[in-house]
């Protein structure tokens, strides 16, 4: 009987054992990034800007020229890369601690300047790498190691909705939020990410995609329960959708 290839892993994804925890969405998002770059045929011409957090080893999985940025500074590093090599495809890959906390100034200003870069933002509502502390995106009532009684709005403020905040800035051409907790969402996420990348390829401006992601380890949940939490708790507060889509010339 003839063999039919049902699934092929993107070539830009290195075939090696993953250091991510079982059920972690970082690996899934990596795969989407690799797939989109491949479809657009730009992998050869891409500079990836890594960040700090569980994804610090992104260069172990994506076979791309990569530079590591200090915690939160990826948008500034990417600005330096893109300004010196405007002909390259440049994207950052950042967690919520990285982007919404320590690096808030860098992301806001790179977005506002309309840097022609793409930002892949992985929001798992927690600091993964350092062991599950509170993030700016931690949900009200969510327990972490530094808000053991659960996040409280009076004390810690409300979780930040980055995709909406970024959409409000002038230099931004595209801002969206997606999830990868089920096949339906994953398919949509792929389309959205590709669109954000195309915006850069067309030289139009800044593109931002927030991924709602799971961290089963620090949520102390099974992978399946974590996927469910994304659906039942996160999506109602962090709605999926495209918050800005300006195709016009900037």
């Amino acid at each position, binding site marked *: 009987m003839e063999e039919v290839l049902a699934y092929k892993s993107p070539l830009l994804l290195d075939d090696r054992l993953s250091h991510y925890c079982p059920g972690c969405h970082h690996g899934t998002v990596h795969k989407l990034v690799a797939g989109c770059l491949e479809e657009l045929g730009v992998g050869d011409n891409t500079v990836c800007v*890594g960040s700090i957090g569980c994804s610090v080893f992104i*260069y172990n999985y994506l076979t*791309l020229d990569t*530079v590591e940025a200090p915690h939160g500074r990826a948008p500034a590093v990417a600005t330096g890369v893109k300004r010196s090599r405007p002909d390259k495809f440049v994207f950052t890959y950042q967690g919520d601690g990285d982007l919404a906390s320590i690096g808030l100034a860098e992301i806001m200003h790179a977005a506002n300047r309309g840097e022609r870069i793409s930002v892949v933002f992985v929001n798992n509502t927690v600091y993964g790498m350092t062991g599950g502390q509170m993030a700016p995106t931690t949900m009200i009532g969510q327990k972490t190691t530094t808000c053991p009684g659960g996040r409280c709005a009076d004390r810690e403020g409300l979780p930040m909705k980055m995709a909406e905040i970024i959409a409000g800035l002038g230099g931004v051409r595209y801002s969206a939020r997606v999830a990868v907790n089920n096949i339906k969402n994953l398919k949509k996420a792929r389309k959205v990410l590709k669109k954000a990348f195309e915006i850069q390829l067309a030289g139009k401006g800044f593109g931002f995609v927030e991924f709602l992601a799971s961290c089963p380890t620090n949520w102390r949940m099974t992978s399946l329960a974590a996927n469910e939490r994304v659906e039942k708790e996160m999506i109602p507060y962090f709605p999926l959708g495209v918050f800005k889509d300006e195709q016009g010339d900037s």
Partner: protein
Amino acid sequence: MLMSRIFIKGNVAIARGALDAGCRCYFGYPITPQNDIPEFMSKAMPEAGGEFVQAESEVAAANMLLGAAACGIRAMTSSSSPGMSLKQEALSYMAGSELPGVVVNMNRGGPGLGDIGPSQGDYFQSVKGGGHGDYRLLVLAPGTVQEAYDLTILAFELAFAYRNPVLILGDAIIGQMQEPITPQKPVAVDPFEGGSWRLEGAGQREPRVIKSLHLTDGALAGHNLKLQEKYQRAGKECRHEEFLTQDAELIVVAYGSIGRIVKSTIRKLRKEGVRVGLIRPITLFPFPSRVLFDLADQGKKFLTIEHNMGQMVEDVRLAICGKAESRFYGQLPGNLPTPNDFEQPIIDAVRS
């Protein structure tokens, strides 16, 4: 062909030096007393086909430098003391990632907000690392506007030769004074500089990764050893000015604008028969220890004069290894010293 002389401010000489050295990306954030540099660059970079970005902070500016450096382009940032503290994070990452870049610090008075006047209070921060970890910057300290221009060009050469950030350490005196200089012919920069390591998209080759993270057993040790070997090699870049040392009883050690002012004092005292000479370190790292050691060996006494409460004097003492008498005179910040201010301390040291 001889280039015609121009009359410019020290800050502008640095900016012009960078332009002539082939710098094509500048990232900065305003702070006195170095604002002439970003102001010059905001016009010069676009005109030269490059990029100027006024960053949201010194943190961002230094990280933009990191990104540009990773692409192998000649790039620069500049600031003054409080801003330099903010740049240290990126400088540590650049040193760890072996990235070339030029950074200017027009040192003002501190700690904290301090004042905007000249000072040499950032010596330790400049030559001992500044950021976290075991690394060094190459540090150049101009004493004239011509030198500010020439050393900026040298800074770019050294940054790429050693793949390390190079710091130009000046102060408000050097930055704000105006002198005639002779510019050089602009450097023809090879666009493939950094061709073996720069990021540009992997194409058909193996991808390149520029990083400072080394977690596997022994990897960081090996990397740090490699960095230390590089700093050793950089020893051959040592530069200093030697003035009337041969018959001197006393050697004054002073750098930058203070070195230049002390030189005037020495000229005057020489006419009065005082046997004093000057060593003005031009590279602060690597430090000209050898020449100091040799002078100590000849039985000369030492006086270190700085615009701080005693920082470089530690390196002078290390260099002379207890072989000679060593004194220190510190000029307090908040004052613009004149050659007269150093007369008595020098006479006291000679007579001691």
